[in-house]
């Protein structure tokens, strides 16, 4: 792949930015603000109508963006070598350095009935409530794994919704076994405690090592089946019972959105949570010179880590484009220390809230795995055990999971996992990369291409 003109710093020729940042969440905002403060010409692009990303979601993030060309409503659908970002509906944007801060989305695991209307991700519940003031139901189950379940449940309670139960597949008592990592992120622990207090106040059962195994209903979900998990993540026999609800929010952490950096050839790795993330160096640079990454794309760790990484990368690209770092020595040291502490906590969080090992046992042969192409378990099994598919690429080619509208964003993880398991080997980054590789990052009309 051709590398960009990286050489000595020079003023940006007109029309070409020093830095273009894709994604205006906590990470991208921090990159843009920091680089602009150093004097860089910065473009900040986001598909959404306003900046803020998943965390701020349209509310004012209170970040000073003077000197930044903010381009909202700019879904980037293609990136060419030479660092040109193609966006829908307007001219391409070119820059000397690119920063990808495209965030993450909920990671989901299939289970019988997960395609019923009313079964949504925790992120969807949050987006509908925080973004539009609409709660996802009147009697809601919140389930899956990860600390994010707590603010989702607490938010629904504050909106007057009856939360009938919160079911966490992990075992949060394991946090106590790593006091040093927890101490490094004290704010997080405090936040979790306050959500737990809200749950307790509303007498909402919070069950750990429990999972939603199936959803039932005709036109929409009317009940879920909940079961207890043992220490190995397998279902405890006889523990399954029904819980009535009219909506369920279920997800197992987040997974990054990587198609743009992958299109440029950036290398990836498998993170502690089993997600595919970008491999970056100390400065946040990917394996492609001149291409940087910040926030969830480098490893899921939450808004605070995203912002810290964003400031560091913003300062780094400023220096790389011939500007003086806007960070003092002291600020730099503090941010670096904070980044390590938050990353250590994130790694702990990944281990505590890992997807339960027994999830494939919950599937029936007819459970839909690929929602777009209606591919059930038995067709994937037939491809692996009957037609000789040994990797995700072959499975995809032989029975179409990941070929539909979402291009494997939703089914990529479960299909890769099932394929690896049925081949009797561990999941690899290459398995996931098959489903994350999307040179056309967003659907584009043939007439607009």
């Amino acid at each position, binding site marked *: 792949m051709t590398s960009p003109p990286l050489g000595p710093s020079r003023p940006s020729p007109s029309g070409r930015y020093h830095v273009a940042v894709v994604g205006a969440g906590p990470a991208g905002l921090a990159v843009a603000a920091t680089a602009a403060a150093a004097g860089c010409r910065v473009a900040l692009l986001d*598909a959404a*109508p306003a900046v803020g990303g*998943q965390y701020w979601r*349209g509310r004012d993030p209170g970040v000073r963006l003077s000197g930044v060309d903010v381009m909202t409503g700019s879904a980037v659908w293609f990136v060419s070598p030479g660092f040109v970002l193609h966006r829908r509906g307007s001219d391409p944007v070119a820059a000397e350095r690119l920063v990808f801060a495209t965030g993450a*989305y*909920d990671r989901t695991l299939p289970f019988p009935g997960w*395609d019923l*209307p*009313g*079964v*949504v*991700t925790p*992120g*969807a*519940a*949050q*987006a*509908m409530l925080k*973004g*539009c*003031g*609409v709660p*996802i139901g009147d009697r809601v189950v919140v389930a899956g794994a990860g600390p994010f379940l707590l603010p989702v449940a607490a938010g629904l309670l504050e909106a007057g919704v009856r939360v009938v139960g919160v079911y966490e597949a992990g075992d949060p008592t394991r946090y106590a076994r790593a006091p040093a990592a927890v101490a490094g992120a004290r704010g997080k622990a405090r936040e979790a405690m306050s959500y737990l207090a809200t749950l307790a106040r509303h007498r909402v059962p919070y069950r750990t090592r429990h999972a939603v195994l199936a959803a039932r209903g005709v*036109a*929409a979900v009317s009940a879920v089946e909940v079961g207890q998990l043992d220490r190995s993540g397998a279902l405890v026999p006889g523990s399954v019972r029904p819980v009535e609800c009219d909506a369920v929010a279920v997800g197992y952490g987040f997974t990054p*959105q990587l198609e743009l950096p992958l299109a440029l050839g950036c290398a990836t790795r498998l993170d502690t949570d089993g997600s595919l993330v970008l491999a970056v160096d100390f400065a946040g640079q990917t394996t492609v010179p001149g291409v940087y990454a910040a926030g969830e794309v480098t490893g899921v760790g939450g808004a605070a880590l995203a912002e810290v990484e964003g400031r560091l990368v913003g300062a780094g690209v400023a220096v790389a484009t011939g500007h003086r770092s806007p960070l003092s020595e002291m600020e730099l040291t503090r941010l670096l220390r904070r980044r390590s502490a938050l990353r250590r906590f994130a790694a702990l969080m990944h281990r505590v809230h890992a997807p339960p090992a027994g999830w494939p046992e919950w599937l029936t042969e007819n459970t839909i795995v690929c*929602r*777009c*192409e*209606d591919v059930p378990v038995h067709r994937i099994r037939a491809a692996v055990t009957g037609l000789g598919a040994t990797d995700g690429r072959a499975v995809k080619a032989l029975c179409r999971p990941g070929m*539909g*509208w*979402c291009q494997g*964003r*939703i089914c990529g993880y479960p299909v890769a996992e099932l394929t690896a398991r049925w081949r009797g080997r561990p999941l690899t980054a290459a398995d996931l990369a098959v489903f994350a590789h999307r040179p056309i990052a967003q659907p584009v009309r043939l007439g607009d291409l």
Partner: protein
Amino acid sequence: MSASGHLIFDGRRVPVKPGQTVAAALWAAGIRSWRTTRETGAPRGVFCGIGVCFDCLVTIDGTPNQRACLAPASPGMVVTTQLGTGR
């Protein structure tokens, strides 16, 4: 930001509040699905809520395959249940 009023969903009036997406407006009116899958005809509505899963595709003002969770709702909009491919 879009204003208050009503959109029309399959001939029915659905209230729209400023800042809402089409999905949120429909959901607030108790509507949980507005699409059927092309192979099995199963009903679908919101899943990811942020434009990633494409489960919420719907026909808006005659144009099929719009993501209801991203499309801003506006008064007077005509939204129709999308069957199969929407074409």
